[in-house]
């Protein structure tokens, strides 16, 4: 990294501030005000000027080129890409250490390509994204696009419970005292709603029967028309040609897909209200 020691120190300090504020959400709106009270003018970014303006400018230009289409020109979210000013990864990034990894590796599973960028370029991108995060925080709740936990409180928890136990069929797989106990403490706001609608990290099981008759079970790790892969109980990744074996997949998350055409928006809001009671 080409950051000066003082920059690194200030980055660490910034990260500390953000860590202290935890996940960026409605509850943390007091932070920028405290900074304002400490003497920061309102007409400039309220957070301390942590990155050299030149670096931020360079990062901004690069961001505009490579990132803004998906993440928005202000890093506040755009076409398909998330709002980076609310990203926990950004919050915990120090001088590009985490942002750089994502930029260079991409997120193929989410459709983000990788970008071959130098250390200097990563540092400038990080400087720009952190500066945008500071600005967004300074604006406080509602001052930017995005979804606050407070926006998702329009449902009726009683109706949601009824839906959970009845029409939604949720109770056939989930239990408020079992897998969902304390869910509202672990996940909040949009994150909770997204997981509720489709738990994208839910694992599927697969049983593969080889030509020999031997059956191997594990967690489904890869599947296309031609290859099936699993991680077995010992932690090994194993794969076979789909035409060479028989296999059976148990994908409980598919029940969520079947619900999409059945939901009303009220069902979703009510269900959300109910899940938020499970603390």
């Amino acid at each position, binding site marked *: 990294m080409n950051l000066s020691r003082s920059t690194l120190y200030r980055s660490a300090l910034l990260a500390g501030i953000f860590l202290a504020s935890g996940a960026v959400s409605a509850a943390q709106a007091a932070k920028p005000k405290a900074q304002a009270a400490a003497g920061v003018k309102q007409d400039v970014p309220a957070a301390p000027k942590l990155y050299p303006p030149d670096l931020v400018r360079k990062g901004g*230009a690069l961001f*505009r080129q490579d990132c803004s289409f998906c993440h928005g020109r202000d890093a506040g979210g755009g076409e398909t890409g998330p709002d980076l000013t609310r990203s926990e990864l950004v919050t915990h990034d120090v001088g590009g250490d985490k942002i750089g990894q994502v930029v260079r590796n991409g997120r*193929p599973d989410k459709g983000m*390509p990788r970008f*071959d960028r130098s250390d200097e370029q990563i540092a400038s991108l990080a400087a720009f994204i952190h500066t945008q995060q500071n600005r967004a925080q300074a604006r406080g709740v509602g001052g930017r*696009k995005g979804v606050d936990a407070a926006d998702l409180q*329009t449902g009726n928890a009683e109706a949601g419970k009824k839906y959970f136990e009845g029409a939604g069929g949720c109770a056939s797989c989930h239990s408020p005292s079992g897998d969902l106990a304390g869910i509202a403490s672990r996940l909040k706001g949009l994150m909770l709603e997204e997981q509720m609608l489709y738990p994208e990290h839910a694992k599927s099981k697969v049983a593969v029967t080889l030509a020999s008759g031997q059956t191997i079970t594990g967690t489904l790790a890869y599947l296309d028309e031609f290859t099936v892969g699993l991680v077995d109980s010992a932690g090994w990744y194993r794969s076979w040609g789909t035409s060479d074996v028989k296999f059976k997949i148990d994908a409980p998350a598919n029940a969520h897909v079947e619900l999409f055409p059945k939901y009303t928006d009220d069902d979703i809001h009510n269900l959300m209200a109910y899940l938020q009671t499970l603390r």
Partner: protein
Amino acid sequence: MNSRNAFLFGISVLLALASPGVLLAQGVDEQMLLHPPADSWPSYHGDYSGRRHSTLTQITPQNVKNLALAWAFQTEQTALIKSSPLLVDGIVYFTVPDNIWAVDARSGHQLWHYNAPTTQGEHIGNRGLAMYKGYLFFLAPNAHLVSLNAKDGSVRWKVQVADVTKGYWTSMAPLVVGKHVLIGVSGDFDNLSGYIRSIDRETGATQWQWDSTPPAGTPNQTTGGMTWMTGTYDPDLDLVYWGTGNPTPVLKGSTRPGDDPYTCSIVALNPNTGKLAWAFQVSPHDTHDWDAVETPVLVDADFHGEPKKMLMQSSRNGYFFVLDRTNGKSLLTVPYGPVNWSLGVDRQGRPIPNPAKEPAPDGRLIAPDEGGLTNYRSPSFDTKNGLFIVDAHPSWSIYFAKPADGVYGWSGADYDVWGKGVIDAIDYQTGKIRWSHELGPGGAGSGVLTTDSGLTFTGDAMGNFLALDSSNGKTLWHAGSGSSIVSSPTTYELDGRQYVLMSSGGVMFAWDLPERE
């Protein structure tokens, strides 16, 4: 090029010149654009119809299993190839933002590489080139149209076609029609008017401009209607067909009441004047970012027993449209996947947006997602089977918008919840899906090419190139590519050999059948 390569190149040029049927480079002329020979792919769609259906039959459902690599060309860039390569005079031309490669179509050998880094404008992708005579036309992210010498990639002229500082950029492949180079513009983060501009193919001078929407700041009127993608052309009717983008502000309709013409529309323009002949709006008052820039495919065939000049579009909003392209009247409007945002279809054949499905502060569940039931990747009309074949994306998402999000640019937020990729073969007379081929979770980015021999070339969500049987969707051939496939396949024949070009990541692959006796 080192001296040895230069020597070999010289030799190969001599051999090429000596071989029968190969003439000196002529470039592209009007006849070639109107009737592309088998040894050419002279424009983005291959021909003016946008059908991406080839009459080549050497590669068949029976022998496609033998398809093998002829060559692969590494751009050595992380930018993904999203362009459709041109093929003219035995040379393949393709692009990523700021870059053009000219590659020998028989060997994959590089002739030249144009690299002009720009810092302004979104670098999200480049769809490719147009060509006339010995000159290429290329749009740079900074909204300049560059004309280059096809022989060496040197710049002939460069003109600004939009103001990048206002929020425009360019990414599409220009279209040459007569004396005109037609270009479209990109942008979504600012309340700006989209337009199609006609540029003199020789001088670079602007000939006319057609604006999709009124000037920014007009009260109660929309902005937007960006012209992201390459249109099509009917030389008999002398009409150019183009799709226009979504309105702005994107996810909020309060400042732009009504239908918001001509956003999310298919428009027919006179190529000599830019005058509007007709417009058909596929998404009145869009609030979901579903532009209508997907290829307006031109098909002449029977519709319910009557010969018709048709225009077909599998639109991002989830509906498949068949229009009479002489007058823009609807023949068929039907969803081709999950769609939950409309109250039905009006008497003109336009979906009626459900106000309850506009983005809201507490979220609305919407199908399809913002990427749409399809997107820029090209569909194909298989004239043999009468099937419109499209890489579809059944999907669900949640859309939010609240007063604090403002009324400029995006003005809301949306999140994909779930989606998958599937090739759908649509019966154009009924809209019924004749067959479907699953492509995998998330969604796939490859376009579609069909051939007269009954093959459908495309790619899946995991990076496998696929050749399917066009009559039933069964896989006949595949090859793992190792990266994302986000361009549309093309095909051509040289020296009696049929090649199929498909890109993955930053690599261009050419496939053909192994040498025969």
